């Protein structure tokens, strides 16, 4: 059977990946450089008996998305910089109330309105700590249009499995770049759906987690179970609590349900790391330039490798330590003033010299620029 090919923009691939994952609801608000995702959803979802709604603002966009998920839909929203800031409060509600959604942030330059049409990687830490309070985070940084499609499916699967929001941290270059995409046959990739209650409505305790995975089964509004959703810290009954034992139980479980399965979640990519004395660590659009620079440096006889976190959260620290076992120098090129480099420092400590390489002028780091840095430190 011939492979189904497409020539898509990253934003288009994210929308189509969502649909392939079973997403049938999109709530959003226009913002550059993510608007194409909403536009594709507005066109495609009605054809599939899905629902698209353009809300009055970014906050409403994520609110409607969470509402639809509570009513049983796989639901998604998309935004960029300022909109990501606006969505943080309701993102926190989805963490606390354990409502699966997928949120796409197509990173542009900041702070504030910043550079709407220019690329950056300045939201890495906002993805981790943007909303107030502790929670586990799952965030993917695609490096190609193919990955935009595949990781959006993965994001939905993880959101449904762990009952929490999952983020795709794309960027303006990946979002607007066009590439070949090989579309897998439906059925050839796994689709995970949220666990449903196995007990009757009378026996249902809405936030009683299964011990094997720390995730409570989720009923949908309208399917006969009556339950309470709240952003307040709550007990197993879903009701607000001030009891220290109940508070601690809930709070720790929110973090633990991700920590426990960190190895299932973490994704990364290696390029010639086995004997690498210099390691380049980069993600998103920068990794494309960095991998090319590494190959060119190899051709010149430099023992250099590349490590790419695909999940930027959880950060693949164990895997990085292994990949950097022979590295004396680690270069971290980023389109920000140094965000992921902190995680690299935490992982590697004094085992290697960490060399940040930052660009914040709205442009992408080019292969020859990264190559120059490699040659400089070699």
């Amino acid at each position, binding site marked *: 059977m011939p492979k189904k090919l497409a020539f898509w923009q990253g934003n288009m691939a994210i929308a189509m990946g969502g649909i392939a994952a079973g997403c049938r*609801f999109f*709530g959003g608000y226009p913002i550059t450089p993510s608007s194409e995702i909403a536009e594709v959803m507005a066109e495609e979802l*009605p*054809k599939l*008996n899905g*629902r698209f*709604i353009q*809300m*009055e*603002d970014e*906050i*409403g*966009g*994520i*609110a*409607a*998305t*969470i*509402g*639809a*998920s*509570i*009513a*049983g*839909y796989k*639901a998604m929203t998309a935004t960029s910089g300022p909109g990501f800031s606006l969505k943080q*409060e*309701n993102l926190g*509600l989805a963490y606390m109330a354990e409502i699966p959604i997928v949120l796409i942030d197509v990173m542009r330059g900041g702070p504030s309105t910043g550079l709407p049409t220019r690329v950056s990687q300045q939201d890495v830490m906002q993805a981790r700590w943007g909303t107030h309070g502790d929670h586990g985070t799952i965030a993917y940084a695609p490096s190609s249009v193919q990955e935009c499609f595949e990781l959006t499916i993965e994001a939905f699967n993880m959101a449904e499995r762990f009952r929490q929001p999952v983020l795709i941290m794309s960027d303006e270059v990946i979002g607007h770049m066009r590439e070949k995409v090989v579309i897998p046959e439906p059925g050839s990739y796994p689709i995970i759906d949220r666990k449903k209650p196995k007990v009757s*409505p009378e026996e249902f305790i809405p936030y009683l987690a299964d011990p094997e995975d720390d995730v409570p089964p989720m009923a949908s*509004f*309208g399917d*006969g179970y*009556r*339950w*309470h*959703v*709240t*952003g*307040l810290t709550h007990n197993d*009954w879903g*009701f*607000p609590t001030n009891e220290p034992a109940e508070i601690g139980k809930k709070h720790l479980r929110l973090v633990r349900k991700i920590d426990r399965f960190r190895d299932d979640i973490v994704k990364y990519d290696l390029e010639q790391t086995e004997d690498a004395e210099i390691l380049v660590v980069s993600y998103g659009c920068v990794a494309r330039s960095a991998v090319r620079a590494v190959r060119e440096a190899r051709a010149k006889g430099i023992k250099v490798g590349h490590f790419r976190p695909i999940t930027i959260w959880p950060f693949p620290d164990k895997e990085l330590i292994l990949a950097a076992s022979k590295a004396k120098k680690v270069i971290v090129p980023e389109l920000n003033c140094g965000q992921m480099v902190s995680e690299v420092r935490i992982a590697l400590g004094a085992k290697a010299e960490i060399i940040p390489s930052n660009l914040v002028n709205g442009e992408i780091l080019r292969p020859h620029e990264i190559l120059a840095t490699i040659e400089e430190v070699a």
Partner: protein
Amino acid sequence: MPREEVKPWLRTRFFPHIWCPGCGHGIILHAILRSLIDLGKTREETVIASGIGCSSRMPGYINANTVHTTHGRSLGFATGIKLANPELTVVDVMGDGDCTAIGGNHFIHACRRNIDITAIVMNNNIYGMTGGQASPTTPVGARATTAPYGAIDTPFDICRLAEGAGASYVARATIAQPALCEQYIKKGIQKKGFSVVEIITHCHTQFGRKNKRPNPVDNLNFFKDNSVPKAKAKEMTEEEKKGKIIIGEFVDREAQEYTEAYLKLIERVRG
């Protein structure tokens, strides 16, 4: 005491409730439950949404599908729920600050969109939960912890706001007229479109103690003495209407409802 058939609709597991003794919110809760029961709604098909504030704690006590969201944003969540499953009866309970200050944008757009949700706005002219700060419905001259010398900004008329923004049904009553509250809530729920029922209630704890109405009874008497039916208000001068609460139905119209329009769009697209 509540009617017997109301009891299965209450989550007594979560009692005692957080409201002060004498709070008007209980009268409104009872009116909402009587309305739902009399309309033959089941708990399974009913959604009660809310934001943040004393009034927004109401859904927790109702044994249905309930969602207590972020401050001012409940209509966004309710919109997602209703569009996802238009079969559900969605009631959104809000306070005056939740609805008209932080949630003002969502409120006017829910009216404009005319989505089939019934908004019950419990207007007590104050932020009660946070300790008595001025809200967008605090009357000029009234005192609040953030308006110690009296409020100077013009309050919103929630019903006129809803009417101007395009709601299909708009009515106002006070908790001193519980039967009227129930009648309007029922009509709001039955109306295919966005309905707003503003219910004037009191916060004797926060508003009353600073504004010479420190007891629940003072407030109920104030509402009885100052409520004016819409028809009578028409014959009054602006001066005479000052300080009065005009009660009645302000909008009752038929218009295209949002989820119906969306389902038609799906039919059109799918052919």
